[in-house]
């Protein structure tokens, strides 16, 4: 009869596995790639004469951030927390006011006629503006558009934009386009 094998001491396997674990902890990152996504306008052709796209004055709201991170939206100095409401009011134009953007009847596939606002938010900054202030304003503007989209989705589909299926989201996107223009860099503040 062969001798029974002595049980292997397995205490150290845990330690070996721990070493592996520590290797993975060091060598990898748990990256959460989240951010505010934006599409830049294409560079105008140099050979082509630059033609100004005629945008009616009432259709544009200028949000300026100067080198001191102060904000001027539509000619009114304001705090960053007020920007969202300003944009929402500007884009939706609830009272159909003359000074706020006009609306254009558009035929949206799968939805029908809808008065799409022609408003454009133009974001201008100074070279000395801090990135955090810039992104906070960007964030507020995106928040405003998200709020309008949520409203539209709530009224028409009874749920929030994020909970809709792909097709309906496309309709909402078409009804409420995110028209934000990031202007060419220029110095907003006056030279002293």
């Amino acid at each position, binding site marked *: 009869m062969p001798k029974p094998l002595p049980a292997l001491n397995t205490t150290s396997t845990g330690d070996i596995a721990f070493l592996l674990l520590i290797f993975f902890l060091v060598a990898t990152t748990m990256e959460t790639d989240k951010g505010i996504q934006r599409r830049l306008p294409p560079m105008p052709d140099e050979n082509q004469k630059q033609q100004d796209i005629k945008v009616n004055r009432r259709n544009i709201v200028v949000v300026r951030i100067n080198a001191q991170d102060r904000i001027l939206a539509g000619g009114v100095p304001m705090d960053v927390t007020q920007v969202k409401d300003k944009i929402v009011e500007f884009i939706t134009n609830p009272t159909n006011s003359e000074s706020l953007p006009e609306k254009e009847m558009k035929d949206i596939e799968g939805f029908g006629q809808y008065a799409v606002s022609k408003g454009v938010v133009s974001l201008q900054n100074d070279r000395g503006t801090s990135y955090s202030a*810039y992104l906070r304003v960007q964030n507020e503007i995106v928040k405003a558009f998200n709020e309008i989209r949520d409203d539209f989705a709530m009224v028409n589909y009874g749920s929030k934009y994020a909970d809709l299926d792909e097709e309906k989201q496309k309709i909402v996107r078409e009804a409420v386009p995110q028209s934000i223009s990031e202007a060419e860099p220029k110095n907003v503040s006056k030279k002293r």
Partner: protein
Amino acid sequence: MASFSMASTSDIIFMLIFFFMVSTTMRETDKLVMVKLPEASETAKLERKDLASYINIGTPVKDKQAEYGTDARIQLNDSFRNVSDIRDFIAVEREAMSEGDRQFMTTVIKADENVRMGIISDVKQELRRCSALKISYSARTVDKVQ
């Protein structure tokens, strides 16, 4: 005292390893600049991580400051670069992608919150020139920006 079996500890740790292997990605570049991302609440998740190229902007890390100073610098891959190098960087990144994926290429701008917009405007202008138009301003997601 009877020693109890340690055979299962390795299995437990292995499970932890698997968790980390699945949920993390390999570090691809060393950080040369310090980046504290700004906060934002309306962030969207990057759909395709493999189609992203990263531009880090910030102050050089402590042990590089003697050489590169404390002004904000641009880091592409593993070295400090200038705005003019972005063109080549984008070209190389684009070349590495398959034909059909190129249009979905996203440039992720990871900039420190204290960076001035001047450098970022320059980067944006350069990206427009190379028609890398999809960008994402990397941010920490918070419920409410205070």
